[in-house]
């Protein structure tokens, strides 16, 4: 079997004296859905930023499809097939939903009409088809989340990194989102999700990685993980002073 599709190898991030990410390693195979969970302040966001390219690792390697991407800035990673969403959605407020998604679609479809068509298709997938001409500024939170995902999907990424994309959604919105991601996964998309919502994690329970205080403390399927004493301690235990 060839090298795994996405490899995080002994990644470390130090800020001065503070070690935010401490020797984290894991792999993703193509077509997997993996969740990363951990208590607040565990370093998940820092890890995420290392994977998306907003931060460079102090040590270790990140590889996509065999190639080292440590030094690549975020836009180059996006061009290589790594899509991502932002925890606080960043719609392009002066543009319509359609135009927002077209910005993503232009990567693989440089011509105007093709990008437009692609954007329409993606909007349909996320359920925003009828809001295509609405200014992003006027979309609801849940719609902005979906727009965020749509823009990333329009890049036709091989791997998509989702940062707490369920936060603030109601139960039926969450169910829809899970359905959408399952659908995309069936089409071949690999997903790496940071999530707080255990229901979501369970829905995708194939593999869960637990991060605490910058280190990986557990890895396995959701049921096994959530029964582990270390994991329970990390979430409930009184570690801080």
């Amino acid at each position, binding site marked *: 079997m060839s090298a795994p599709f996405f490899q995080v190898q002994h990644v470390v991030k130090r800020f001065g004296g503070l070690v935010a990410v401490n020797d984290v390693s894991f792999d993703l195979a193509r077509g997997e859905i993996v969740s990363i969970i951990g208590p607040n302040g565990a370093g998940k966001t820092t890890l995420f930023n290392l994977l998306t*390219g*907003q*931060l460079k690792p102090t040590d270790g390697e990140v590889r996509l499809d065999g190639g080292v991407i440590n030094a690549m*800035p*975020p836009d180059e990673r996006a061009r290589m097939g790594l899509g991502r969403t932002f925890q606080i959605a960043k719609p392009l407020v002066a543009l319509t939903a359609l135009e927002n998604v077209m910005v993503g679609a232009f990567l693989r479809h440089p011509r105007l009409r093709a990008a437009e068509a692609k954007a329409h298709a993606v909007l349909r997938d996320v359920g925003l088809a009828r809001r295509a001409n609405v200014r992003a500024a006027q979309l609801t939170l849940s719609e902005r989340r979906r727009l965020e995902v749509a823009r990333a999907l329009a890049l036709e990424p091989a791997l998509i990194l989702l940062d707490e994309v369920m936060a603030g959604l109601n139960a039926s919105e969450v169910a829809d989102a899970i359905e959408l991601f399952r659908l995309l996964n069936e089409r071949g998309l690999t997903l790496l999700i940071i999530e707080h919502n255990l229901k979501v994690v369970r829905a995708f329970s194939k593999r869960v990685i637990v991060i605490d205080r910058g280190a990986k403390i557990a890895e396995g399927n959701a049921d096994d993980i959530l029964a582990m004493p270390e994991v329970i301690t990390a979430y409930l235990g009184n570690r801080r002073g």
Partner: protein
Amino acid sequence: MDSLLHVLVVGLLLGGIYGLVSLGLNLIFGVIRIVNFAHGELVMLAMYGAYVCYATLGLDPYVSVLIVVPALFVVGVLMHRLVLQPLHAESSMQIFATFGLLILFQNAVLALTRGEGYSVPSKLAATTFEVGDIRVTMSRLVIFVALTLAAIALHVFLKRTRIGKSIRAVTQDRQAARLMGINVERTFTITFGIGAALAGLAGALLAPIYTLSPGIGGNFILAAFAVVVLGGLGSVAGAYFGGMIVGLVEAFAGFYIDPELKQAIWFVIFLAVLVVRPTGLFGQAGAEDVGFREQT
């Protein structure tokens, strides 16, 4: 060695002028983040104000400071409340409005004076004395001293008084300041007024040095911005030393390179500082997010 000393003195005194003019702009730009194109015109209005005091009341310009400075404070407060505060959400429009005010002030004075040049004599200002081989005019020394005193006074004001602390709080973090109960808008207006008052001080003290003309503000505005950026936003020390640096650079460039190019030289340095370190030499916390976009 002699000429070096001479250039040094010229530069420092020139720096005094630049620093004094920039002190107010530094406060305005640093705290409220407004690009006030009309700042040079505020200095100009103060210069003419000193002339009016001289022509109608026979006051020496150094005395007219007592009238001109409060008057400019009022002008600043009005300017901010009526024009700039309403536009706080649209910074491009604010710049546009300050430019409109620039044209308005300049041409109002032009129309009133019908293009006549005035000068404001002052016996004290004209006296000179010798330091070794170098002749120093009292007027420029006064500026230098006034700048130093004003800078110290401003520093103490910002550190010790309640209003001063509000100003500093608002500079660092508007949201947090608001949450702590500080009336941010009123603080801005007061800050603008103080900035204008400092411009008034500069104008009154500069009146004996220059021949007054409505366009004289233009001489200062760009140098003032260069000083503000070099020294660092919201930093009193920054305006002070920034002014010195600009003055020295201009004097040395004028002497050793080419007097024609002296203005270009400090612009180039200003650009270099802006690009490398937009927080300036004495940059304050909170100034970074004004200067830089987010870096990856």
